[in-house]
């Protein structure tokens, strides 16, 4: 019986069989076609403006939401807190979580640069935990460096220079979501937003943590599909992809 079945296989059946086999690579290739939905390759920030207060400590809890990426070679979506030298002329130190092309999830990261150009120092640790872990940057007056902390109490990175000797004041705070392709999703969706909460800074040596002031929120590229809104001005806001 098996021999008979094989013998009567009509040309149409062969065609259907081959077509079904050929369909596999056609379907498999579809993600590259999806790159067309990546839009333009440009950096977009979604969060606060660069603050004007001189700060030595910046913190925020940030809701972990693994963003969807469009699949471009430079796909990137992150959420972070930062201290940076004045007016963008200085360097920066930041920590938060990030998802890059090829990643199945988001990981905690920290990055700094003595100047706002050239090579930077980047380190990425464990997967970002669920919930809203605390991230902060803190200038150590004794050691003369900035420590970048993730998940409330995990030190990930420390600057190898003393910003006080390099950067001009004011050192300013910033809280942002960020993508590098307009087709990448910002962390958070309309129904599950990414919250930056418990935003605090210190403005003097030995001073206590206080709520920052004078902040506004916006999307740096209005043509994108991202949203941002205050929940409590200067203290809590949320971002999302519409």
């Amino acid at each position, binding site marked *: 019986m098996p021999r008979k079945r094989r013998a009567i296989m009509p040309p149409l059946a062969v065609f259907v069989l081959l077509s079904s086999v050929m369909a596999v690579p056609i379907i498999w290739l579809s993600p590259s076609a999806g790159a067309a939905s990546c839009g333009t390759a440009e950096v977009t920030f979604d969060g606060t403006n660069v603050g004007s207060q001189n700060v030595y400590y910046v913190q925020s809890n940030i809701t972990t939401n693994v963003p969807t990426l469009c699949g471009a070679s430079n796909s990137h979506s992150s959420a972070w807190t930062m201290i940076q030298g004045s007016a963008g002329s200085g360097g920066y130190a930041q920590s938060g979580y990030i998802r890059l092309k090829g990643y199945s999830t988001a990981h905690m990261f920290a*990055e700094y640069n003595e100047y706002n150009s050239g090579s*930077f120092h*980047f380190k990425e640790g464990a997967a970002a935990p669920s919930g809203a872990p605390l991230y902060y940057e803190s200038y150590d007056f004794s050691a003369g460096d900035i420590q970048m902390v993730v998940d409330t109490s995990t*030190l990930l990175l420390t600057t190898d220079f003393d910003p006080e000797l390099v950067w001009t004041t004011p050192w300013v705070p910033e809280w942002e979501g960020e993508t590098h392709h307009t087709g990448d999703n910002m962390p958070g969706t309309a129904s599950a937003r990414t919250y930056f909460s418990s935003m605090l800074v210190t403005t003097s040596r030995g001073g206590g943590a206080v709520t920052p002031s004078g902040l506004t929120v916006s999307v740096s590229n209005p043509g994108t599909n991202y949203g941002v809104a205050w929940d409590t001005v200067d203290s809590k806001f949320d971002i999302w992809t519409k």
Partner: protein
Amino acid sequence: MKRKGIVLVTTIGAMVLALAVSIPALTAGGATRQRPRISAGASYAPLPAAAYTGLGVSLNPLQGSQLATVQVTVSEARSVAQERLGLTNAEASNVTVLVGSFTDDEYATTDAAGVKELVADDLPAYVVTFSGLSIAAANGGPGRNTQESVVVDAASGEVVEVFSFQ
């Protein structure tokens, strides 16, 4: 035939010598019986000094007792690293794989009692470094790096951390 035999023996001898030179700890103290998983393609070399000053990471030679913990092959480590960074084969073609005892003096957890514990402290690991990349700074600035390294636990195959500094 005799000439071919000499060439073969010489070639094998050179390979053994190269492995012994590149992984000196493997041949120390008669530990060679404990290294079935480490194959050619990985060698030991210290990380650049800038990796320690900038990131706190360093790599030392594996010691005898650490050799038995190595269960991940070089090709497995490389595959894990490539997958973690989402690199195509073309992007991942310029790669070096180091094996050794990895320590990160900065990456540390602190418990409620204030006790600090390093996440990676003398951990047998592969450091898989891809070069020729164009890595954008996470702050969106103009900074660019061309190398990225993935630290793979040599016992479990898990990614310990990713770092980049040049």
